[in-house]
């Protein structure tokens, strides 16, 4: 390259760099939004009562599902005129989350809602809050001891797998497929939640006389979902069913399926994103169902926190007090019932 060429190259890149800044100004509108999953409430419990301050701490919203958890909690709190909501910045650093919860304790909030990044690591600070007389609602990732929480509310990973497996087994029987090839695209394999989902899936299929065929694990991201599924589809020339653990990575899984031009099988998703529910409703592709692990549990956690603060029970139950643990149900959302669940579908 001559000296003149170099100069041109340099000026060219400078001009292009400036244009980059300009183009940047055009592009920061968020995409469509799903409705916030909030409970309308009915009966006496929905009437305004004693003022309650709820402290909230959760991991960073770096994933559609986790983002929906924080968003739902906030939206639910805003529905109650008697609730003051104090949320801390989401973080994936357990030390920072411990410090945040300590700050909320020092602020003397009435009730704490904590979704720990790591249940084991946050157990001690949960106990600290309980010892200080602040009831803790532990959401999803469970603390090590009931001494650290008043009530736990979370999803059921094992049943997610069971319900996905039972749905697929029923489909196979209805179609009369003798030896179906059933694939699984799991999430991060080292997480207990992934292991529970897989175990439930395996057990439910075994009960139907089937087994899991090709299995890959992705990283809960759309890119990893696409990569793993592209390889998986090449290894299996024929599939009858596929279960994908997570609807966020499901965007990539579907891109791989469309890229490979495949569609001979039924696909079941996991978690319940709005995107997947729309596809189930349209019924034009492979997605026939998704098993819920709904971030609506965050809305319920806030509603429970309010009732705890006001010393009320749950209407219709005989109990005077809020139960110590509530497990949400991993319902199977299909074309038949999707309208009923659209309100809890979250943006992935």
């Amino acid at each position: 390259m001559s000296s003149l060429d170099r100069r041109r190259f340099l000026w060219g890149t400078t001009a292009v760099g400036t244009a980059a800044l300009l183009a940047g100004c055009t592009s920061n509108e968020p995409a469509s939004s799903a409705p916030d999953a909030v409970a309308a409430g009915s009966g006496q419990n929905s009437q305004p009562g004693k003022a309650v301050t709820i402290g909230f701490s959760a991991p960073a919203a770096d994933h559609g599902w986790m983002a929906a958890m924080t968003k739902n909690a906030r939206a639910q709190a805003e529905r109650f005129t008697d609730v003051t909501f104090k949320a801390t910045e989401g973080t994936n650093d357990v030390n920072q989350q411990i410090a945040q919860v300590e700050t909320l304790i020092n602020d003397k909030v009435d009730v704490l809602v904590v979704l720990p990044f790591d249940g084991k690591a946050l157990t001690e600070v949960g106990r600290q809050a309980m010892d200080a007389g602040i009831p803790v609602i532990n959401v999803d990732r469970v603390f090590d001891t009931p001494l650290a929480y008043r009530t736990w509310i979370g999803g059921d990973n094992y049943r997610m797998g069971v319900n996905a497996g039972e749905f697929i087994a029923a489909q196979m029987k209805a179609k009369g497929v003798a030896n179906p090839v059933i694939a699984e695209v799991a999430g991060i394999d080292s997480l207990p939640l992934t292991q529970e989902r897989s175990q439930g899936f395996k057990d439910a299929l075994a009960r139907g006389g089937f087994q899991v065929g090709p299995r890959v694990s992705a990283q809960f991201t759309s890119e990893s979902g696409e990569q793993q599924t592209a390889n998986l589809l090449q290894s299996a020339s024929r599939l009858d069913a596929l279960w994908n653990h997570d609807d966020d990575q499901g965007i990539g899984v579907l891109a791989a399926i469309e890229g490979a031009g495949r569609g001979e099988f039924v696909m079941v998703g996991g978690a319940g994103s709005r995107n997947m529910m729309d596809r189930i409703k349209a019924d034009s592709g492979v997605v026939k169902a998704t098993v819920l692990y709904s971030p609506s549990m965050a809305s319920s956690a806030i509603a429970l926190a309010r009732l705890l603060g006001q010393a009320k029970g749950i209407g219709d139950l005989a109990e005077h007090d809020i139960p110590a643990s509530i497990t949400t149900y991993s319902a199977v959302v299909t074309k038949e019932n999707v309208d009923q669940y659209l309100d809890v579908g979250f943006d992935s």
Partner: protein
Amino acid sequence: MRLAGLVGVLVVLCLVGWATRPDSFLTEANISTMLRLAAAIGVVSVGMTFVIISGGIDLSVGSIVALSSVWMTTVATQSYGPAVMVLCALLVGLGCGLVNGVLISYGRIVPFIATLALYASAKGLAERLSGRRTQVVTETGFTTAFRGDLLGVPVLIWLLAAVFAVGWVVLNRTTFGRRTFAVGGNAEAARLAGINVKRHTALVYGIAGLCCGIAALMVVARTTSGASTNGMFYELDAIAAVVIGGTLLTGGRGSLIGTLVGVLIFTVVGNIFTQNNLDTDIQNIAKGVIIVAAVLLQRTTAARRRVPRTT
């Protein structure tokens, strides 16, 4: 030739794949899948090869891919059509690369720190821009253009081939390439020889950034979405591919063909594991073994040919 050993490893891996799955491994569809999977990380690795030959390192490539992919897929950008999307990806990538380059050469911040800083801030910006949600591509013109075939070969594979060919010519057949080797070999000597080392270094990082922009549009085409999680761990995969490809981490010596073979080796390993329905944990162990084995292999073959360097 040192490459021969590496190509040998690739051939052996392909034989393993063929032996374990004779029905599906060497099919046209599977080879095309592997090459398309290699495309994005391959393009990033081309840029990384330039940076490492020039004596630097770039830890920010994954975040630049994330930021470029998010930028090109946010709603407003998509409504301007595919050309604007592509342009955004390329310009954002190039811009980030030049920021790295200027910080390193004119700001005199060591590459490790400067690119670590951009790794963090580009990731943060990508998360802010996307609202931490996966931005689905609704612009069908873009998806049909980049997900399709050209003369029977997927567009993404053409793109990889083009980036690789241009990179090879620039590195091996131009003054710019020779200077990259010179700067990496001995920056002071290069400066005394009349090379504008600062400007050259800044441009090398610009090239790496531009490659990330191209990779971002490949990832968006493949996943039909932009997300702040795109490009995760690309820095490690690219550095691994460059190093097993025979490029010296200390700079001054290296080969793009080696890098490409390195990328293909990792892609084939991943495919073999999936083809045989094996656990992914073992796959990571295998990756580590391959990195160590390849570097040891190169050192022994290099030692046989010349007096060993003490550095």
